[in-house]
């Protein structure tokens, strides 16, 4: 049971970590497909 809960906790930790990393990786749509001359209401 403990291993199962640890596994589920690891899912949450990896997901949150991935979100943090990917937000800084420069692959968001507005970063890939837009430029400085385009105004977007992007929530940072």
């Amino acid at each position, binding site marked *: *049971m*403990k*291993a*199962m809960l*640890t*596994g*589920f906790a*690891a*899912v949450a930790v*990896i*997901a*949150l*970590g*991935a*979100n943090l990393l*990917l937000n800084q990786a420069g*692959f968001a749509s507005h970063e*890939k*497909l837009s*430029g400085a001359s385009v105004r977007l209401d992007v929530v940072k």
Partner: protein
Amino acid sequence: MRVLLWLLVCLTMALPATAQTTPDRSATGGAQTLADIMARQNSVAVDDTFRRENVGDSASLPGVPQLGTQGGVSDPEFWRALRYGSADVRVSAGGEVATVLVQDGGMRWLAYRAGPLRQYGGWLLLGTLALLVVFYLLRGKIPIDGEKTGRTVTRFRAFERFGHWLLGGSFILLGITGLITLFGRVAIAPYLGKEANATFLELGKWVHNNVAWAFIVGLVIIFVMWVVHNLPDRTDLVWIAQAGGIVGSKHPPAKKFNAGQKVIFWSVVLFGASISITGVSLLFPYELPMFAKTFAVVNDIGLSSLLGLGELSETLAPQEEMQLAQLWHAILAFVLMAIVIAHIYIGSVGMEGAYDAMGSGEVDEAWAKQHHSIWLEEIQQEQDTSQGNPTKQSPAD
């Protein structure tokens, strides 16, 4: 246009066999005819070369510079070039993706995703559930034969169980959010409203995109831990011959994993890997196109013609790469979900004592002897050796 018509006439004369199958389009000046339109509406394949290649030829026309901005190309010819992806589109930003202005493959993807994918995928999952309910009603819970011994053996160590639940927990989240993404418009929006559907989708997208990494980590862990135990061997033949005990009353001998579990393992590893690769390709749009290259290999080894698919297109628009990745991702995910539903059934309500293996990791010896007799013998021999008692009799099969 005249050149093309002339070419068409020459080809017609030179190839009488082909001429019999080439429709006569002289009445429309070479443009598509009512027969073409009707054939297309009836989903009959129409050779569209006569349209695809009819995109004008400024170079061969005299005095083109004096003409308008399109040179000697007419509007229909210009739009045909855009439609069939042969126009010389140049963009200052956005790269190759932005040069595709008309992408008709998108309609095929949309129709397939909204049609057969939802239909067959949905029925596959419902059918699997229905089969399991019928199986349970007919067979009931598979009991442990005789009394439990009260003595347990360690079936899976803590790290093995951790890896399993990391993979299993993430897969369930990915499955649910994937289904919401595919079925939300038809199963949530009409009943709970579009706002609710949008909220589910937004949340689902976050979960799907980020939990995917936990799935990949879990997949690597279980592969490394269990690949050695999942290599096929002779005991699998006996297990398969007895359908794991369904045929006859005996329980076939098995090592750590029986043939059925090996099928699940390799399904998870192979389908899971393919789902992961296409998923990563979708997470980084247009960065990892892989279908054109795969199609080239499939064509080269003759697999496509063997399967009756003909020659697969080796030139795909960037958007088409993503569409195919999405479809392949979803098709394999449906198959894997069906397999995993059966796995969850047998590991919980379907078999007495099975959950303990992944719950506490400790299983009763009676259960182990019944389902994994060879493995139990090995474990007991190891224990005896480590306790300095190598002569102790191991239990018979």
